[in-house]
């Protein structure tokens, strides 16, 4: 499944990084601890988090993640959004909680 397809199925908002909507999803990782994501996420995964600052983009880029999804209606900071557009890594959002969103993603890509 691509990020675009996931976005359509779950009605996710696209904040930025549209260029990367064609990214293929290999799985997901859910964490708000950055070194946990650094150590345990893998290439092509979607990352579900409530962290909105720019360092999440640095991690997504370094780990070649497919997309970041912000939960609970969290809005990205301005420089986070700018880097998402610069790097073409989709930054998505939802008003769903981490639990609800993760369950739905799991059902779709397991």
């Amino acid at each position, binding site marked *: 499944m691509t990020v675009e397809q996931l976005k359509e199925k779950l009605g996710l908002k696209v904040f930025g990084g549209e260029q990367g909507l064609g990214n293929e999803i290999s799985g997901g990782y859910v964490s708000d601890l950055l070194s946990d994501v650094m150590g345990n996420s893998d290439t092509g995964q979607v990352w579900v*988090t409530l962290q909105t600052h720019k360092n999440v983009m640095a991690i997504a880029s370094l780990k070649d993640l497919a997309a970041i999804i912000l939960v609970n209606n969290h809005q990205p900071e301005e420089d986070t959004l700018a880097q998402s557009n610069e790097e073409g890594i989709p930054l998505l959002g939802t008003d769903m909680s981490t639990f609800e969103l993760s369950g739905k993603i799991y059902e779709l890509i397991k």
Partner: protein
Amino acid sequence: MHFEYQIEGGNFTRAGFASSEIKKMLKQLNVDLGIIKRTVVATYEAEVNVVAHAYSGTIYVDVDEKGIVIKLVDEGPGIPDIEQAMKEGYSTASSKVREMGFGAGMGLPNMKKNADELNITSEVEKGTTVEIRMGFG
């Protein structure tokens, strides 16, 4: 080949910039993807530690046909007990840093897991030197 990058303590908006440059450079050199991935994890954690815990630092990168050596030399408070600092979950990060999602005490364990060789030396109230070695063989 030799490269150097500066790191500014406390400046989280630039954290990861040097690691990103190093990743690009290793890709251009056609280094094995698995080695790049592990190098990136170890280097990023070391870079962020300088930002989070020290005042300033320099990264020295050397690549030759045998492998990669990345040395981070910082001026900072140093690490009084390196063995304790290496334990997963140990962190002295400030509450501000923790709010950002840093401070899980997983950075040094990540470095240990991903580097082929990790050497840390530190002098309290002077600074810390971290050496990450990756072999091509």
